[in-house]
Protein backbone atom coordinates (compact mmCIF):
# COMPACT_ATOMS: atom_id res chain seq x y z
CA UNK A 1 0.00 0.00 0.00
CA UNK A 2 2.76 2.40 1.07
CA UNK A 3 4.86 1.33 -1.92
CA UNK A 4 1.88 1.99 -4.24
CA UNK A 5 1.35 5.40 -2.66
CA UNK A 6 5.03 6.23 -3.10
CA UNK A 7 4.83 5.09 -6.69
CA UNK A 8 1.91 7.45 -7.23
CA UNK A 9 3.88 10.27 -5.60
CA UNK A 10 6.83 9.68 -7.92
CA UNK A 11 4.72 9.37 -11.06
CA UNK A 12 2.43 12.31 -10.33
CA UNK A 13 4.31 15.59 -10.63
CA UNK A 14 1.56 17.39 -8.71
CA UNK A 15 1.69 15.14 -5.66
CA UNK A 16 4.27 17.27 -3.83
CA UNK A 17 2.40 20.54 -4.24
CA UNK A 18 -0.93 18.89 -3.34
CA UNK A 19 0.67 17.39 -0.22
CA UNK A 20 2.06 20.78 0.82
CA UNK A 21 -1.35 22.40 0.27
CA UNK A 22 -3.01 19.66 2.32
CA UNK A 23 -0.53 20.15 5.17
CA UNK A 24 -1.07 23.92 5.22
CA UNK A 25 -4.86 23.48 5.17
CA UNK A 26 -4.67 20.88 7.96
CA UNK A 27 -2.46 23.03 10.18
CA UNK A 28 -4.60 26.14 9.53
CA UNK A 29 -7.83 24.29 10.34
CA UNK A 30 -6.35 22.92 13.57
CA UNK A 31 -5.02 26.30 14.69
CA UNK A 32 -7.93 28.54 13.68
CA UNK A 33 -11.63 27.72 14.19
CA UNK A 34 -12.44 30.34 11.56
CA UNK A 35 -10.45 28.73 8.77
CA UNK A 36 -12.82 25.98 7.63
CA UNK A 37 -15.98 28.08 7.78
CA UNK A 38 -18.05 28.29 4.62
CA UNK A 39 -17.58 32.08 4.46
CA UNK A 40 -13.79 31.75 4.66
CA UNK A 41 -13.72 29.02 2.01
CA UNK A 42 -15.85 31.26 -0.19
CA UNK A 43 -13.47 34.22 0.11
CA UNK A 44 -10.43 32.00 -0.56
CA UNK A 45 -12.16 30.69 -3.70
CA UNK A 46 -13.05 34.20 -4.86
CA UNK A 47 -9.55 35.49 -4.28
CA UNK A 48 -8.14 32.47 -6.13
CA UNK A 49 -10.44 33.13 -9.08
CA UNK A 50 -8.87 36.46 -10.07
CA UNK A 51 -5.24 35.62 -9.39
CA UNK A 52 -5.94 32.15 -10.83
CA UNK A 53 -6.87 33.50 -14.27
CA UNK A 54 -3.58 35.44 -14.43
CA UNK A 55 -1.72 32.38 -13.11
CA UNK A 56 -3.18 30.20 -15.90
CA UNK A 57 -2.07 32.81 -18.44
CA UNK A 58 1.40 33.18 -16.95
CA UNK A 59 1.90 29.41 -16.63
CA UNK A 60 1.12 28.91 -20.34
CA UNK A 61 3.68 31.58 -21.21
CA UNK A 62 6.19 30.01 -18.83
CA UNK A 63 5.74 26.62 -20.51
CA UNK A 64 6.96 28.48 -23.62
CA UNK A 65 9.86 29.92 -21.64
CA UNK A 66 8.32 33.40 -21.79
CA UNK A 67 6.95 35.84 -19.20
CA UNK A 68 4.46 38.69 -19.48
CA UNK A 69 4.80 41.23 -16.68
CA UNK A 70 2.16 43.46 -18.26
CA UNK A 71 -0.77 41.07 -17.64
CA UNK A 72 -1.83 42.96 -14.49
CA UNK A 73 -1.67 46.26 -16.37
CA UNK A 74 -3.67 44.77 -19.27
CA UNK A 75 -6.29 43.55 -16.80
CA UNK A 76 -6.52 46.98 -15.15
CA UNK A 77 -6.59 48.87 -18.44
CA UNK A 78 -9.25 46.61 -19.95
CA UNK A 79 -11.33 47.05 -16.79
CA UNK A 80 -11.11 50.82 -17.20
CA UNK A 81 -11.94 50.61 -20.92
CA UNK A 82 -14.91 48.43 -20.00
CA UNK A 83 -16.05 51.03 -17.47
CA UNK A 84 -15.77 53.82 -20.04
CA UNK A 85 -17.65 51.82 -22.68
CA UNK A 86 -20.46 50.93 -20.29
CA UNK A 87 -20.82 54.19 -18.35
CA UNK A 88 -19.59 56.99 -20.61
CA UNK A 89 -20.24 55.56 -24.11
CA UNK A 90 -23.39 53.74 -23.03
CA UNK A 91 -22.74 50.43 -24.76
CA UNK A 92 -24.79 47.46 -23.57
CA UNK A 93 -22.79 45.82 -20.72
CA UNK A 94 -22.44 42.45 -22.45
CA UNK A 95 -21.17 44.05 -25.66
CA UNK A 96 -18.67 46.15 -23.69
CA UNK A 97 -17.59 43.04 -21.77
CA UNK A 98 -16.99 41.09 -24.97
CA UNK A 99 -15.18 44.03 -26.62
CA UNK A 100 -12.84 44.31 -23.64
CA UNK A 101 -11.93 40.64 -23.88
CA UNK A 102 -11.04 41.19 -27.54
CA UNK A 103 -9.05 44.31 -26.66
CA UNK A 104 -7.17 42.29 -24.02
CA UNK A 105 -6.37 39.64 -26.62
CA UNK A 106 -5.22 42.42 -28.95
CA UNK A 107 -2.86 43.82 -26.29
CA UNK A 108 -1.49 40.31 -25.73
CA UNK A 109 -1.11 39.94 -29.49
CA UNK A 110 0.87 43.21 -29.65
CA UNK A 111 3.16 41.94 -26.86
CA UNK A 112 3.65 38.65 -28.71
CA UNK A 113 4.36 40.36 -32.03
CA UNK A 114 6.90 42.72 -30.44
CA UNK A 115 8.64 39.78 -28.72
CA UNK A 116 8.80 37.70 -31.89
CA UNK A 117 9.46 40.42 -34.48
CA UNK A 118 12.02 42.38 -32.50
CA UNK A 119 13.53 39.24 -30.92
CA UNK A 120 13.40 40.97 -27.55
CA UNK A 121 13.37 39.17 -24.20
CA UNK A 122 9.75 39.06 -23.13
CA UNK A 123 10.70 39.96 -19.55
CA UNK A 124 12.20 43.32 -20.57
CA UNK A 125 9.64 44.13 -23.24
CA UNK A 126 6.64 43.44 -21.06
CA UNK A 127 8.06 45.57 -18.22
CA UNK A 128 7.96 48.44 -20.73
CA UNK A 129 4.51 47.50 -21.99
CA UNK A 130 3.23 47.40 -18.39
CA UNK A 131 4.28 51.06 -18.19
CA UNK A 132 2.47 51.82 -21.47
CA UNK A 133 -0.82 50.13 -20.48
CA UNK A 134 -0.63 51.47 -16.90
CA UNK A 135 0.15 54.97 -18.19
CA UNK A 136 -2.74 54.91 -20.68
CA UNK A 137 -4.95 53.78 -17.82
CA UNK A 138 -4.01 56.92 -15.84
CA UNK A 139 -4.38 59.15 -18.93
CA UNK A 140 -7.96 57.93 -19.42
CA UNK A 141 -8.99 57.99 -15.77
CA UNK A 142 -6.71 60.64 -14.23
CA UNK A 143 -6.56 58.15 -11.41
CA UNK A 144 -10.26 58.43 -10.62
CA UNK A 145 -12.40 55.29 -10.51
CA UNK A 146 -15.31 54.99 -12.95
CA UNK A 147 -18.47 54.38 -10.99
CA UNK A 148 -22.00 53.52 -12.04
CA UNK A 149 -21.17 50.15 -13.62
CA UNK A 150 -24.53 48.59 -14.68
CA UNK A 151 -25.78 46.15 -12.07
CA UNK A 152 -26.70 43.64 -14.80
CA UNK A 153 -23.10 42.37 -14.87
CA UNK A 154 -22.67 42.56 -11.10
CA UNK A 155 -23.51 38.90 -10.56
CA UNK A 156 -20.40 37.92 -12.57
CA UNK A 157 -18.30 39.34 -9.75
CA UNK A 158 -20.51 38.95 -6.71
CA UNK A 159 -22.84 36.05 -7.53
CA UNK A 160 -22.59 32.49 -6.28
CA UNK A 161 -23.52 29.11 -7.70
CA UNK A 162 -23.57 25.98 -5.53
CA UNK A 163 -22.12 28.09 -2.71
CA UNK A 164 -19.04 29.11 -4.68
CA UNK A 165 -18.39 32.50 -6.30
CA UNK A 166 -19.17 32.82 -10.02
CA UNK A 167 -15.61 34.10 -10.79
CA UNK A 168 -14.27 30.84 -9.31
CA UNK A 169 -16.43 28.76 -11.67
CA UNK A 170 -15.32 30.91 -14.61
CA UNK A 171 -11.69 30.36 -13.59
CA UNK A 172 -12.32 26.59 -13.45
CA UNK A 173 -13.80 26.65 -16.98
CA UNK A 174 -10.73 28.43 -18.34
CA UNK A 175 -8.44 26.13 -16.37
CA UNK A 176 -10.13 23.21 -18.13
CA UNK A 177 -9.74 24.93 -21.51
CA UNK A 178 -6.07 25.75 -20.85
CA UNK A 179 -5.40 22.20 -19.62
CA UNK A 180 -7.09 20.76 -22.71
CA UNK A 181 -5.06 23.02 -25.02
CA UNK A 182 -1.73 22.25 -23.35
CA UNK A 183 -2.18 18.53 -22.79
CA UNK A 184 -4.53 17.29 -25.50
CA UNK A 185 -3.90 19.29 -28.66
CA UNK A 186 -1.02 19.49 -31.18
CA UNK A 187 -0.76 23.20 -30.31
CA UNK A 188 -0.07 22.23 -26.70
CA UNK A 189 2.64 19.79 -27.77
CA UNK A 190 4.20 22.57 -29.85
CA UNK A 191 4.17 24.78 -26.73
CA UNK A 192 6.21 22.23 -24.77
CA UNK A 193 8.54 21.74 -27.75
CA UNK A 194 9.14 25.49 -28.09
CA UNK A 195 9.69 25.82 -24.35
CA UNK A 196 12.15 22.91 -24.26
CA UNK A 197 14.20 23.90 -27.27
CA UNK A 198 12.95 26.57 -29.66
CA UNK A 199 15.63 26.11 -32.37
CA UNK A 200 14.99 22.35 -32.43
CA UNK A 201 11.23 22.98 -32.61
CA UNK A 202 11.79 25.32 -35.55
CA UNK A 203 13.86 22.65 -37.31
CA UNK A 204 10.99 20.21 -36.80
CA UNK A 205 8.76 22.57 -38.77
CA UNK A 206 6.87 24.08 -35.86
CA UNK A 207 5.86 27.72 -36.43
CA UNK A 208 7.54 28.88 -33.24
CA UNK A 209 6.56 32.54 -33.60
CA UNK A 210 2.92 31.70 -34.30
CA UNK A 211 2.79 29.54 -31.18
CA UNK A 212 4.33 32.34 -29.11
CA UNK A 213 2.01 35.04 -30.49
CA UNK A 214 -1.02 32.79 -29.99
CA UNK A 215 -0.22 32.16 -26.33
CA UNK A 216 0.51 35.85 -25.66
CA UNK A 217 -2.88 36.73 -27.19
CA UNK A 218 -4.66 34.10 -25.05
CA UNK A 219 -2.85 35.42 -21.97
CA UNK A 220 -4.04 38.96 -22.79
CA UNK A 221 -7.59 37.62 -23.16
CA UNK A 222 -7.43 35.97 -19.72
CA UNK A 223 -5.98 39.14 -18.16
CA UNK A 224 -8.84 41.19 -19.62
CA UNK A 225 -11.33 38.62 -18.30
CA UNK A 226 -9.83 38.91 -14.80
CA UNK A 227 -9.98 42.72 -15.06
CA UNK A 228 -13.62 42.76 -16.18
CA UNK A 229 -14.64 40.26 -13.49
CA UNK A 230 -12.97 42.52 -10.92
CA UNK A 231 -14.94 45.49 -12.30
CA UNK A 232 -18.11 43.44 -11.84
CA UNK A 233 -16.98 42.50 -8.32
CA UNK A 234 -16.17 46.07 -7.21
CA UNK A 235 -19.04 47.72 -9.07
CA UNK A 236 -16.54 50.30 -10.31
CA UNK A 237 -13.57 50.39 -12.67
CA UNK A 238 -10.61 51.09 -10.42
CA UNK A 239 -7.38 52.21 -12.08
CA UNK A 240 -5.51 50.16 -9.46
CA UNK A 241 -6.99 46.83 -10.64
CA UNK A 242 -4.17 44.45 -11.55
CA UNK A 243 -1.46 46.23 -9.55
CA UNK A 244 -0.97 43.14 -7.40
CA UNK A 245 -1.16 40.61 -10.25
CA UNK A 246 2.48 40.79 -11.28
CA UNK A 247 4.75 38.59 -9.18
CA UNK A 248 2.22 36.39 -7.36
CA UNK A 249 1.17 34.39 -10.45
CA UNK A 250 4.81 33.77 -11.42
CA UNK A 251 5.59 32.53 -7.90
CA UNK A 252 2.42 30.41 -8.00
CA UNK A 253 3.43 28.81 -11.29
CA UNK A 254 6.94 28.04 -10.02
CA UNK A 255 5.54 26.52 -6.81
CA UNK A 256 3.17 24.49 -8.98
CA UNK A 257 6.02 23.00 -10.99
CA UNK A 258 6.28 25.35 -13.98
CA UNK A 259 9.86 26.66 -14.10
CA UNK A 260 10.65 29.96 -15.81
CA UNK A 261 13.01 28.05 -18.13
CA UNK A 262 10.02 26.46 -19.91
CA UNK A 263 9.18 23.08 -21.35
CA UNK A 264 7.49 21.46 -18.36
CA UNK A 265 4.58 21.93 -15.96
CA UNK A 266 0.83 22.41 -16.32
CA UNK A 267 -1.71 25.18 -15.66
CA UNK A 268 -3.35 22.86 -13.08
CA UNK A 269 -0.10 22.65 -11.12
CA UNK A 270 0.18 26.44 -11.26
CA UNK A 271 -3.33 26.77 -9.83
CA UNK A 272 -2.35 24.53 -6.91
CA UNK A 273 0.61 26.89 -6.42
CA UNK A 274 -1.78 29.86 -6.45
CA UNK A 275 -3.98 28.05 -3.93
CA UNK A 276 -0.98 27.63 -1.59
CA UNK A 277 -0.21 31.34 -1.77
CA UNK A 278 -3.92 32.23 -1.37
CA UNK A 279 -4.31 30.04 1.71
CA UNK A 280 -1.10 31.43 3.23
CA UNK A 281 -2.31 35.01 2.68
CA UNK A 282 -5.64 34.05 4.24
CA UNK A 283 -4.18 32.48 7.38
CA UNK A 284 -1.76 35.38 7.88
CA UNK A 285 -4.78 37.64 8.43
CA UNK A 286 -6.70 34.97 10.34
CA UNK A 287 -3.81 34.58 12.78
CA UNK A 288 -3.45 38.35 13.16
CA UNK A 289 0.18 38.50 12.04
CA UNK A 290 1.51 42.08 12.01
CA UNK A 291 1.49 43.63 8.53
CA UNK A 292 5.19 44.36 8.92
CA UNK A 293 5.87 40.63 9.22
CA UNK A 294 3.41 39.51 6.54
CA UNK A 295 5.72 39.67 3.51
CA UNK A 296 8.49 37.90 5.41
CA UNK A 297 6.18 35.17 6.74
CA UNK A 298 4.47 34.73 3.37
CA UNK A 299 7.82 34.54 1.53
CA UNK A 300 9.31 32.13 4.07
CA UNK A 301 6.32 29.76 3.83
CA UNK A 302 6.54 29.82 0.02
CA UNK A 303 10.26 28.95 0.18
CA UNK A 304 9.46 26.22 2.71
CA UNK A 305 6.72 24.85 0.44
CA UNK A 306 9.04 24.72 -2.58
CA UNK A 307 11.80 23.13 -0.50
CA UNK A 308 9.49 20.50 0.98
CA UNK A 309 8.23 19.67 -2.50
CA UNK A 310 11.76 19.34 -3.88
CA UNK A 311 13.04 17.31 -0.91
CA UNK A 312 10.08 14.92 -0.91
CA UNK A 313 10.41 14.42 -4.67
CA UNK A 314 14.11 13.59 -4.30
CA UNK A 315 13.38 11.23 -1.39
CA UNK A 316 10.64 9.33 -3.19
CA UNK A 317 12.75 9.00 -6.35
CA UNK A 318 15.57 7.48 -4.29
CA UNK A 319 13.14 5.07 -2.61
Amino acid at each position, binding site marked *: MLRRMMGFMVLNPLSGVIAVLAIIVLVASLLSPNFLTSYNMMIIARSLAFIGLITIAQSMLMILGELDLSLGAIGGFCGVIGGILMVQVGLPPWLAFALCLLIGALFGLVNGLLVTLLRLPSLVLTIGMAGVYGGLNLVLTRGVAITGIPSSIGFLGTGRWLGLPIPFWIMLVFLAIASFITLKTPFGRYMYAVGSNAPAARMLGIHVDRVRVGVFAFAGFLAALAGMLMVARL*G*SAQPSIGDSWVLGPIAAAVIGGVPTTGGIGTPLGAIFGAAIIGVIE*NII*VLFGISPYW*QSMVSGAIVVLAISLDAISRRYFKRE
Partner: protein
Amino acid sequence: MKSRIIPLLLAGALFATPAFAQEGPGQQKADGYRFVLVPKVVHPWFDKVNQGAQQAAAAIEAQSGSKVEIQYSAPQSASVAEQNEIIERAISTRPDGLIVDLLDPSGNRSVLEEAAEQGIPVTLFDSINPEGMSLTTVGSDFCEQANMAANRLIELLGGEGKVAIMMGVPTAPNHAERARCAQATFDAHDGIEVVATGVDNDDINTAQQQASAIMQANPDLDGWVAADAAGPVGIGQAIKEAGKVGEVQLVGLDDLNQMLVLIQEGVADSSSASRPTMQGYWSVINMWQQATGALTPNHIDTGNVMITPDNVESFMQ
Protein backbone atom coordinates in the same frame (compact mmCIF):
# COMPACT_ATOMS: atom_id res chain seq x y z
CA MET B 1 -39.17 13.35 39.64
CA LYS B 2 -41.52 16.07 38.41
CA SER B 3 -41.35 17.76 41.79
CA ARG B 4 -37.56 18.10 41.42
CA ILE B 5 -37.62 19.35 37.85
CA ILE B 6 -40.08 22.20 38.39
CA PRO B 7 -38.03 23.97 41.11
CA LEU B 8 -34.91 23.50 38.99
CA LEU B 9 -36.61 25.08 35.98
CA LEU B 10 -37.88 27.93 38.14
CA ALA B 11 -34.39 28.50 39.58
CA GLY B 12 -32.92 28.41 36.08
CA ALA B 13 -35.47 30.93 34.86
CA LEU B 14 -34.67 33.16 37.84
CA PHE B 15 -30.96 33.17 37.11
CA ALA B 16 -31.50 33.47 33.40
CA THR B 17 -33.77 36.51 33.68
CA PRO B 18 -31.01 39.18 33.82
CA ALA B 19 -29.49 37.81 30.60
CA PHE B 20 -32.74 38.30 28.77
CA ALA B 21 -33.56 41.64 30.32
CA GLN B 22 -33.60 44.60 27.97
CA GLU B 23 -30.46 46.63 28.66
CA GLY B 24 -30.47 50.34 27.98
CA PRO B 25 -28.12 52.04 25.54
CA GLY B 26 -24.49 51.67 26.62
CA GLN B 27 -25.27 49.10 29.32
CA GLN B 28 -24.26 45.87 27.59
CA LYS B 29 -20.96 44.56 28.86
CA ALA B 30 -18.55 41.87 27.70
CA ASP B 31 -15.33 40.53 29.19
CA GLY B 32 -13.45 41.38 26.03
CA TYR B 33 -13.68 42.84 22.54
CA ARG B 34 -11.60 42.31 19.42
CA PHE B 35 -11.59 45.05 16.81
CA VAL B 36 -9.78 44.79 13.48
CA LEU B 37 -8.20 47.98 12.17
CA VAL B 38 -7.72 48.06 8.37
CA PRO B 39 -5.89 51.13 7.04
CA LYS B 40 -5.39 52.05 3.38
CA VAL B 41 -1.86 50.67 3.25
CA VAL B 42 1.24 50.04 5.35
CA HIS B 43 2.31 53.64 6.10
CA PRO B 44 3.73 55.59 9.08
CA TRP B 45 0.60 57.80 9.22
CA PHE B 46 -1.47 54.71 9.97
CA ASP B 47 1.02 53.61 12.63
CA LYS B 48 -0.09 56.75 14.48
CA VAL B 49 -3.72 55.72 14.01
CA ASN B 50 -2.82 52.30 15.44
CA GLN B 51 -1.06 53.96 18.39
CA GLY B 52 -4.24 55.90 19.16
CA ALA B 53 -6.29 52.72 18.84
CA GLN B 54 -4.02 50.91 21.30
CA GLN B 55 -4.27 53.86 23.71
CA ALA B 56 -8.05 53.65 23.55
CA ALA B 57 -7.92 49.89 24.17
CA ALA B 58 -5.84 50.49 27.30
CA ALA B 59 -8.18 53.28 28.40
CA ILE B 60 -11.29 51.10 28.02
CA GLU B 61 -9.66 48.30 29.98
CA ALA B 62 -8.64 50.73 32.73
CA GLN B 63 -12.11 52.24 32.95
CA SER B 64 -14.37 49.25 32.42
CA GLY B 65 -12.25 46.15 33.05
CA SER B 66 -13.13 44.79 29.59
CA LYS B 67 -10.07 43.67 27.66
CA VAL B 68 -9.83 45.15 24.17
CA GLU B 69 -7.64 43.61 21.49
CA ILE B 70 -6.78 45.69 18.41
CA GLN B 71 -5.75 43.60 15.43
CA TYR B 72 -3.93 45.78 12.90
CA SER B 73 -4.19 44.36 9.40
CA ALA B 74 -2.84 46.50 6.56
CA PRO B 75 -2.71 45.95 2.78
CA GLN B 76 0.83 45.90 1.41
CA SER B 77 -0.16 48.17 -1.49
CA ALA B 78 -2.83 50.85 -1.93
CA SER B 79 -5.08 48.58 -4.01
CA VAL B 80 -8.84 48.43 -3.45
CA ALA B 81 -8.96 44.78 -4.46
CA GLU B 82 -6.24 43.90 -1.94
CA GLN B 83 -7.89 45.95 0.78
CA ASN B 84 -11.20 44.21 0.10
CA GLU B 85 -9.52 40.83 0.48
CA ILE B 86 -8.02 41.92 3.83
CA ILE B 87 -11.45 43.10 5.01
CA GLU B 88 -13.08 39.84 3.88
CA ARG B 89 -10.48 37.80 5.74
CA ALA B 90 -11.00 39.98 8.80
CA ILE B 91 -14.78 39.37 8.58
CA SER B 92 -14.17 35.63 8.57
CA THR B 93 -12.45 35.90 11.98
CA ARG B 94 -15.78 37.20 13.42
CA PRO B 95 -14.43 40.31 15.19
CA ASP B 96 -16.60 42.54 17.39
CA GLY B 97 -16.05 45.38 14.96
CA LEU B 98 -14.14 46.62 11.94
CA ILE B 99 -12.41 50.00 11.79
CA VAL B 100 -11.61 50.85 8.17
CA ASP B 101 -10.05 53.67 6.16
CA LEU B 102 -11.63 53.17 2.74
CA LEU B 103 -9.40 53.41 -0.31
CA ASP B 104 -12.41 54.07 -2.50
CA PRO B 105 -15.97 54.13 -1.15
CA SER B 106 -17.52 52.77 -4.35
CA GLY B 107 -14.96 49.96 -4.69
CA ASN B 108 -15.14 49.02 -1.00
CA ARG B 109 -18.92 49.08 -0.86
CA SER B 110 -19.47 45.37 -1.56
CA VAL B 111 -17.32 44.19 1.37
CA LEU B 112 -18.94 46.68 3.74
CA GLU B 113 -22.28 45.18 2.73
CA GLU B 114 -20.84 41.72 3.42
CA ALA B 115 -19.80 42.88 6.90
CA ALA B 116 -23.35 44.11 7.49
CA GLU B 117 -24.75 40.75 6.27
CA GLN B 118 -22.45 38.96 8.70
CA GLY B 119 -23.62 41.24 11.55
CA ILE B 120 -20.25 42.90 12.07
CA PRO B 121 -20.39 46.63 12.90
CA VAL B 122 -18.07 48.99 11.02
CA THR B 123 -16.61 52.39 11.86
CA LEU B 124 -14.89 54.41 9.14
CA PHE B 125 -12.02 56.78 9.76
CA ASP B 126 -10.34 59.31 7.44
CA SER B 127 -13.02 58.37 4.88
CA ILE B 128 -16.42 59.30 3.59
CA ASN B 129 -19.42 56.96 3.57
CA PRO B 130 -20.20 55.05 0.36
CA GLU B 131 -23.35 56.47 -1.22
CA GLY B 132 -26.46 55.36 0.65
CA MET B 133 -24.60 54.00 3.70
CA SER B 134 -24.57 55.69 7.10
CA LEU B 135 -21.69 54.30 9.11
CA THR B 136 -20.07 56.45 11.78
CA THR B 137 -17.08 58.30 10.34
CA VAL B 138 -14.19 59.60 12.42
CA GLY B 139 -11.86 62.20 10.97
CA SER B 140 -11.33 65.78 10.04
CA ASP B 141 -12.53 68.02 7.24
CA PHE B 142 -10.10 67.36 4.38
CA CYS B 143 -11.05 70.55 2.57
CA GLU B 144 -10.50 72.66 5.68
CA GLN B 145 -7.08 71.04 6.15
CA ALA B 146 -6.06 71.83 2.55
CA ASN B 147 -7.41 75.37 2.78
CA MET B 148 -5.44 75.98 5.96
CA ALA B 149 -2.24 74.98 4.14
CA ALA B 150 -3.05 76.94 0.97
CA ASN B 151 -3.98 80.10 2.89
CA ARG B 152 -0.81 79.85 4.98
CA LEU B 153 1.29 79.63 1.79
CA ILE B 154 -0.54 82.58 0.21
CA GLU B 155 0.16 84.57 3.38
CA LEU B 156 3.86 83.60 3.31
CA LEU B 157 4.14 84.70 -0.33
CA GLY B 158 2.42 88.00 0.35
CA GLY B 159 -0.42 87.05 -1.97
CA GLU B 160 1.75 86.73 -5.09
CA GLY B 161 3.76 83.90 -6.60
CA LYS B 162 3.95 80.64 -8.52
CA VAL B 163 2.99 77.53 -6.59
CA ALA B 164 2.72 73.77 -7.12
CA ILE B 165 0.47 71.10 -5.62
CA MET B 166 1.60 67.55 -4.91
CA MET B 167 -1.28 65.08 -5.12
CA GLY B 168 -1.09 61.81 -3.24
CA VAL B 169 -2.92 58.79 -4.64
CA PRO B 170 -5.23 60.21 -7.32
CA THR B 171 -7.83 57.52 -6.62
CA ALA B 172 -7.97 58.28 -2.88
CA PRO B 173 -10.98 60.59 -2.36
CA ASN B 174 -9.42 62.44 0.60
CA HIS B 175 -6.24 63.20 -1.37
CA ALA B 176 -8.27 64.27 -4.39
CA GLU B 177 -10.49 66.49 -2.25
CA ARG B 178 -7.51 68.20 -0.58
CA ALA B 179 -5.90 68.85 -3.98
CA ARG B 180 -9.19 70.20 -5.35
CA CYS B 181 -9.71 72.51 -2.36
CA ALA B 182 -6.12 73.81 -2.43
CA GLN B 183 -6.49 74.51 -6.15
CA ALA B 184 -9.77 76.38 -5.53
CA THR B 185 -8.19 78.49 -2.77
CA PHE B 186 -5.27 79.42 -5.04
CA ASP B 187 -7.62 80.15 -7.95
CA ALA B 188 -9.49 82.61 -5.76
CA HIS B 189 -6.33 84.74 -5.46
CA ASP B 190 -5.36 86.65 -8.60
CA GLY B 191 -1.71 86.93 -7.62
CA ILE B 192 -1.24 83.18 -7.22
CA GLU B 193 -0.60 80.90 -10.19
CA VAL B 194 -0.58 77.10 -9.93
CA VAL B 195 2.15 76.15 -12.41
CA ALA B 196 2.40 72.39 -11.76
CA THR B 197 0.70 69.42 -10.14
CA GLY B 198 2.67 66.30 -9.21
CA VAL B 199 1.42 62.81 -8.35
CA ASP B 200 3.45 60.92 -5.73
CA ASN B 201 1.14 57.98 -4.93
CA ASP B 202 1.76 58.65 -1.24
CA ASP B 203 5.40 57.61 -1.60
CA ILE B 204 8.26 59.76 -0.29
CA ASN B 205 10.76 58.76 -3.00
CA THR B 206 8.28 59.43 -5.78
CA ALA B 207 7.43 62.78 -4.19
CA GLN B 208 11.11 63.71 -4.10
CA GLN B 209 11.59 62.78 -7.78
CA GLN B 210 8.45 64.62 -8.86
CA ALA B 211 9.30 67.71 -6.81
CA SER B 212 12.87 67.82 -8.18
CA ALA B 213 11.59 67.57 -11.76
CA ILE B 214 8.91 70.23 -11.22
CA MET B 215 11.43 72.63 -9.66
CA GLN B 216 13.80 72.02 -12.59
CA ALA B 217 11.03 72.83 -15.03
CA ASN B 218 9.89 75.86 -13.00
CA PRO B 219 13.00 77.56 -11.60
CA ASP B 220 10.89 80.51 -10.43
CA LEU B 221 8.58 78.35 -8.32
CA ASP B 222 7.80 80.03 -5.00
CA GLY B 223 5.97 77.48 -2.93
CA TRP B 224 4.46 74.05 -2.38
CA VAL B 225 1.49 72.41 -0.72
CA ALA B 226 0.68 68.70 -0.71
CA ALA B 227 -2.43 66.54 -0.52
CA ASP B 228 -0.88 63.56 1.27
CA ALA B 229 1.45 62.92 4.21
CA ALA B 230 4.37 61.50 2.20
CA GLY B 231 4.35 64.34 -0.33
CA PRO B 232 5.76 67.20 1.76
CA VAL B 233 8.51 64.96 3.16
CA GLY B 234 9.72 64.22 -0.38
CA ILE B 235 9.28 67.88 -1.38
CA GLY B 236 11.35 68.98 1.63
CA GLN B 237 14.17 66.63 0.63
CA ALA B 238 14.03 67.93 -2.95
CA ILE B 239 14.18 71.55 -1.70
CA LYS B 240 17.23 70.70 0.41
CA GLU B 241 18.91 68.90 -2.50
CA ALA B 242 18.29 71.84 -4.82
CA GLY B 243 19.73 74.26 -2.23
CA LYS B 244 16.49 76.25 -2.23
CA VAL B 245 15.75 76.29 1.49
CA GLY B 246 14.14 79.66 2.29
CA GLU B 247 13.78 80.40 -1.41
CA VAL B 248 10.95 77.90 -2.03
CA GLN B 249 8.32 77.86 0.71
CA LEU B 250 6.74 74.62 1.85
CA VAL B 251 3.58 74.25 3.90
CA GLY B 252 3.29 70.55 4.64
CA LEU B 253 0.54 68.17 5.59
CA ASP B 254 0.08 65.99 8.67
CA ASP B 255 2.53 65.20 11.42
CA LEU B 256 4.90 62.44 10.35
CA ASN B 257 8.15 62.70 12.29
CA GLN B 258 10.10 63.56 9.11
CA MET B 259 7.68 66.44 8.52
CA LEU B 260 8.24 67.74 12.02
CA VAL B 261 12.02 67.56 11.54
CA LEU B 262 11.67 69.59 8.32
CA ILE B 263 9.85 72.29 10.30
CA GLN B 264 12.55 72.25 12.98
CA GLU B 265 15.25 72.53 10.30
CA GLY B 266 13.46 75.48 8.71
CA VAL B 267 12.98 73.64 5.40
CA ALA B 268 9.21 73.76 5.85
CA ASP B 269 7.38 76.69 7.34
CA SER B 270 4.59 74.67 8.90
CA SER B 271 2.21 71.75 8.42
CA SER B 272 -1.55 71.55 8.36
CA ALA B 273 -2.16 68.37 10.31
CA SER B 274 -5.05 66.07 10.92
CA ARG B 275 -4.76 64.04 14.09
CA PRO B 276 -4.21 60.37 13.24
CA THR B 277 -3.66 59.29 16.85
CA MET B 278 -6.94 60.90 17.83
CA GLN B 279 -8.69 59.28 14.85
CA GLY B 280 -7.51 55.83 16.00
CA TYR B 281 -8.49 56.60 19.58
CA TRP B 282 -12.01 57.78 18.83
CA SER B 283 -12.61 55.04 16.27
CA VAL B 284 -12.05 52.42 18.97
CA ILE B 285 -14.11 54.34 21.51
CA ASN B 286 -16.92 54.58 18.95
CA MET B 287 -16.67 50.86 18.16
CA TRP B 288 -16.75 50.01 21.87
CA GLN B 289 -19.74 52.25 22.46
CA GLN B 290 -21.59 50.52 19.61
CA ALA B 291 -20.74 47.16 21.20
CA THR B 292 -22.27 48.34 24.49
CA GLY B 293 -25.48 49.15 22.65
CA ALA B 294 -25.06 52.92 22.62
CA LEU B 295 -26.16 54.96 19.66
CA THR B 296 -23.19 56.66 18.06
CA PRO B 297 -22.99 59.92 16.08
CA ASN B 298 -22.83 60.13 12.29
CA HIS B 299 -19.48 61.86 12.43
CA ILE B 300 -16.80 62.52 15.02
CA ASP B 301 -14.68 65.51 13.98
CA THR B 302 -11.12 65.18 15.27
CA GLY B 303 -10.18 68.55 13.78
CA ASN B 304 -7.03 69.94 12.16
CA VAL B 305 -4.16 71.84 13.68
CA MET B 306 -1.41 74.05 12.22
CA ILE B 307 2.03 72.87 13.34
CA THR B 308 4.55 75.72 13.35
CA PRO B 309 8.08 76.13 14.75
CA ASP B 310 6.43 77.48 17.91
CA ASN B 311 4.48 74.33 18.75
CA VAL B 312 6.36 71.61 16.85
CA GLU B 313 8.07 70.27 19.99
CA SER B 314 4.74 69.22 21.45
CA PHE B 315 4.13 66.91 18.46
CA MET B 316 7.54 65.18 18.60
CA GLN B 317 7.58 61.66 20.06
